[in-house]
């Protein structure tokens, strides 16, 4: 009917539902009114005209209606977003810098958080992980805690407790797999039969272990990992029931565990599981007495049993064990969540890194707040005009916050991309023995963290401009804007931001500096031996084939003499274990003729069995007496060489030479050996651990099933390794040669964790320094441009260039001193938490603090240099005319 009008109306209308309804309603009204006038006798044209006249401005009515019904949040947001995107597009430089800064902060935080998440937060990947506990023993009197237990104690606890659904012990051992390609060592987890029941994980194929498999005399069985099954047996579906050869002995494969199944404490290297009773080494350990606390034990709590209930029960059982085995008096059994035990001591370094990266993000936020404030000042006129035109202050604040959130989200997204890259880059940086290292990834939780972080960050840095806008006074602003006026408040806020940045950067730089200094100290530490030009390789003897000490000694002698006969390999020796690269062995000992140590306490020392030329090859100098000789054979009187530290500690006022020590690697525990020499100290456990007592025995008198070949040679690593492999296989072609490494590499690898901390904190510190520099530069250059007229006036009144220079540099110096005044005490307060990560550096190391303070001052002055130069070049005439 009134098609033209309807059409015209319709063309005005936007398509959102609420708008459509409003349109429909008003159109209905108008049509109705026109109809009415037409009915009253008007022409249509006149009716239309009259209606429109009466109704007033249609758009105005609609706007009033929208306002009356309160515009929906979503709609406002949409408008703000559109407007925000438009504004940001108009300032691409500003947006890019902001987004990049934020991406850096969020990316780093998310990357570190993904590590924290994988290691500390994500529950273990077993069913009902909260029920899993680590069962350990402690003796408060002897200051021993967190050690395993003997098999007899384990059986006692397992058979009599009512709190665990299942309980299992585990140990690691490498077995030699032959008959299926190259002979190779397979990392084997030796477990009691309930191991899989504790972890409640189903096999991929076949079955896991049954109670009968754990009995002595049972048929030997093995459970393979999916990886081993695929790599060595081609994923053969008929593997179950087949026999494989481990240490020259047949084992029947009963099952295959899925690839994502991991053994607690064993990283990803575990490749198969066998019952404890079937292992050539550990089966013999089952009969060890209760005072040998060797086996780590895990258990699963019965549903509904609380930790305290379990603890109470274990206390009772510990008392029963002590009654049965009086030597166990004073030992208590405790439990703690398995996750906590697995995570172990990486928790505090990780939290430190997370805190550090948080500071970095904070600096990034302060920097952005600074940028935004500069922008807000530049947009002061715009805001004043909008407020003068009737814009609601709250609405303007929302608009600004929306803008910040856009920046925040963009930065967050870029940060997640960065985190993705960071996590994979970190893979090579991370110490490989970090627990749960395989599960570090950017998952939903990390994404959520990044999102929350970016929103929180945008609120944080958005607050300043919003507060600033809320206080704006249109009249003065509009009037002042003619003179590029500034509120003093914003400049003061910017100054404080710079101070905060310097203080935060100080904290991070001091942290990074301390770790770096500690790392340098660690690198320059003398291990007591010379690793350069030494190659090592491990040869391990299958114990079903090489059953006794004679066979071991024979093999080792034969290998050594064959190697020494090779050109260039004269400096060859054998040892087990090697310092730093191998786990150390601690043995108790007694001094013959001295009273035994008090109950529950024992003299202990690190122990190594070595071939005679070991000390020469490793360049460990002899201090007194003699080194081992070929004549120290199995039939000769037992001898030992001790380290200086042992001599100093246990023979402070007498000559250790000629004295006898009673010790030995099991089963030769009680052999009395004459001390024939004293050598200088070495760092056995790690570079960071001070040298302690060492006992060396001749490998012919105390051989074990294999050892490490060490060769000091001018030949290349590969030539040396090839020779070792050839000679080993000439003796026995079924022997694997493994763990090949140069000693410098091994020493280097032992520093993976401190290196990781140092590199990360160093990186954070550098970024913090850069950001702080940018922040100061921003503040100073803005301050100079704001004061152009003032400077011009001063110059016109006779100020020299030097005094202008001092004015600008002085302002920067003031910011730095304030920043340091806050930063130094804060750093002193916080570096305490670093002390566990520091080696031979005090957390309040004055040199580090001094260097960092000087560095920050220099950066701040450098950042003020360009603005100051600009200030000096101000032409008073131009500056004054500007006004």
């Amino acid at each position, binding site marked *: 009917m009134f098609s033209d009008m309807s059409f015209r109306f319709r063309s005005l209308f936007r398509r959102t539902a609420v708008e459509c309804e409003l349109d429909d*309603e*008003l159109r209905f*009204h108008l049509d109705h*009114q026109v109809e009415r006038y037409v009915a009253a006798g008007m022409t249509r044209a006149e009716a239309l005209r009259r209606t429109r006249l009466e109704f*007033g401005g249609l758009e105005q009515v609609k706007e009033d*209606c929208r306002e009356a019904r309160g515009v929906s949040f979503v709609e406002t947001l949409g408008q703000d977003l559109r407007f925000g995107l438009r504004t940001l597009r108009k300032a691409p430089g500003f947006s890019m810098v902001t987004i990049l800064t934020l991406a850096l902060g969020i990316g780093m935080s998310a990357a570190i958080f993904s590590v924290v998440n994988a290691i500390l937060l994500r529950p273990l990947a077993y069913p009902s992980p909260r029920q899993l506990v680590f069962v350990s023993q402690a003796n408060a009197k002897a200051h021993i805690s967190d050690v395993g237990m003997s098999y007899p104690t384990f059986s006692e606890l397992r058979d009599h407790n009512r709190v665990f659904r299942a309980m299992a012990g585990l140990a690691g051992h490498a077995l030699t797999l032959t008959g299926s390609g190259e002979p190779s060592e397979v990392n084997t987890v030796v477990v009691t039969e309930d191991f899989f029941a504790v972890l409640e994980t189903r096999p991929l194929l076949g079955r896991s272990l049954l109670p009968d498999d754990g009995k002595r005399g049972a048929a030997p069985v093995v459970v393979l990992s999916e990886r081993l099954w695929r790599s060595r047996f081609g994923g053969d579906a008929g593997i179950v029931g087949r026999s494989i050869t481990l240490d020259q002995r047949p084992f029947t494969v009963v099952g295959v565990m899925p690839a994502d199944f991991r053994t607690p404490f064993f990283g990803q290297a575990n490749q198969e599981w066998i019952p404890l009773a079937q292992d050539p080494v550990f089966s013999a350990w089952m009969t060890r007495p209760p005072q040998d606390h060797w086996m780590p034990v895990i258990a699963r709590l019965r549903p509904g049993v609380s930790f305290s209930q379990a603890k109470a029960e274990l206390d009772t059982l510990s008392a029963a064990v002590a009654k049965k085995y009086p030597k166990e008096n004073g030992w208590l059994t405790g439990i703690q969540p398995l996750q906590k035990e697995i995570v172990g001591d990486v928790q505090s370094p990780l939290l430190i890194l997370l805190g550090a990266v948080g500071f970095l993000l904070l600096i990034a936020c302060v920097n952005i707040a600074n940028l935004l404030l500069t922008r807000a000042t530049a947009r002061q006129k715009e805001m004043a005009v909008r407020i003068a035109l009737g814009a609601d202050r709250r609405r303007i604040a929302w608009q600004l916050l929306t803008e910040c959130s856009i920046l925040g989200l963009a930065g967050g997204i870029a940060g997640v991309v960065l985190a993705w890259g960071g996590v994979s880059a970190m893979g090579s940086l991370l110490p490989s023995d970090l627990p749960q290292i395989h599960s570090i990834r950017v998952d939903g939780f990390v994404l959520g963290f990044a999102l929350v972080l970016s929103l929180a960050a945008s609120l944080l840095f958005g607050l300043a401009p919003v507060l600033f806008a809320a206080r704006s006074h249109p009249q003065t602003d509009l009037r002042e804007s003619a003179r590029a006026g500034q509120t003093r408040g914003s400049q003061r806020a910017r100054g404080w931001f710079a101070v905060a940045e310097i203080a935060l950067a100080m904290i991070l730089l001091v942290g990074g500096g301390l770790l770096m200094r500690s790392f340098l100290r660690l690198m320059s530490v003398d291990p007591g031996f010379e690793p350069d030009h030494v190659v090592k390789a491990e040869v391990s003897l299958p114990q079903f084939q090489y059953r006794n000490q004679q066979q071991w000694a024979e093999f080792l002698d034969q290998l050594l003499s064959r190697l020494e006969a090779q050109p260039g390999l004269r400096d060859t020796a054998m040892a087990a274990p090697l310092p730093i690269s191998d786990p150390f062995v601690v043995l108790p000992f007694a001094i013959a003729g001295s009273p035994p140590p008090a109950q529950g306490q024992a003299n202990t020392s690190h122990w190594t069995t070595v071939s005679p030329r070991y000390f020469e090859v490793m360049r460990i100098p002899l201090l007194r007496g003699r080194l081992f000789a070929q004549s120290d054979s199995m039939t000769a009187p037992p001898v030992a060489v001790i380290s200086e530290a042992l001599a100093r500690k246990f023979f402070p006022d007498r000559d250790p030479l000629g004295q006898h020590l009673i010790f030995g690697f099991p089963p030769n525990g009680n052999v009395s050996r004459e001390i024939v020499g004293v050598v200088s100290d070495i760092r056995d456990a790690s570079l960071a651990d001070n040298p302690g007592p060492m006992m060396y025995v001749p490998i012919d008198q105390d051989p074990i099933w294999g050892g490490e070949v060490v060769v000091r040679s001018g030949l290349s690593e590969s030539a040396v390794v090839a020779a070792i492999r050839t000679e080993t296989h000439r003796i026995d072609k079924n022997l694997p040669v493994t763990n090949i490494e140069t000693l410098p590499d091994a020493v280097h690898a032992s520093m993976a964790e401190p290196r990781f901390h140092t590199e990360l904190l160093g990186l954070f510190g550098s970024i913090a320094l850069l950001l702080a520099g940018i922040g100061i530069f921003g503040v100073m250059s803005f301050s100079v441009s704001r004061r152009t007229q003032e400077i011009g006036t001063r110059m016109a009144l006779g100020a020299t260039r030097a005094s202008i220079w001092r004015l600008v540099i002085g302002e920067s110096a003031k910011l730095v001193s304030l920043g340091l005044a806050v930063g130094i005490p804060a750093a002193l307060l916080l570096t305490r938490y670093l002390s566990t990560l520091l080696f031979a550096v005090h957390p309040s190391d004055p040199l580090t603090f001094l260097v960092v303070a000087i560095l920050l001052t220099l950066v701040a002055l450098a950042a003020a240099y360009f603005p100051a130069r600009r200030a000096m070049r101000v032409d008073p005439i131009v500056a004054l005319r500007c006004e």
Partner: protein
Amino acid sequence: MAVERIDLPQGTLDLLILRTLDLGPQHGWAVSERVQQMSSDVLRIQQGSLYPALHRLERRGWIKARWGISENNRRAKYYELTRSGRRQLQVNKDAWEKMTAAVAQVLGTA
């Protein structure tokens, strides 16, 4: 039309709308018509302020809207009183009566 029309005093629009809707659901056009009729053409609602007022009352929950078919067979938005609207009408009415009485009293004694 001989009758002189007067514009509504501040604040009375809501009262009039509520009162009109008390008679039953109406669309916006009918509300303005009804007010005009009931006041014998003396009161007249500014069309431009009618709809914002309706939307405001709806937001406060005193009236609610639904789409229906009008007497001339078109889709129209009908408003009706809610329970709280009815209560509000009573409150407004009392206030109005009190005020007019007071004003009348003042005028009478002046």
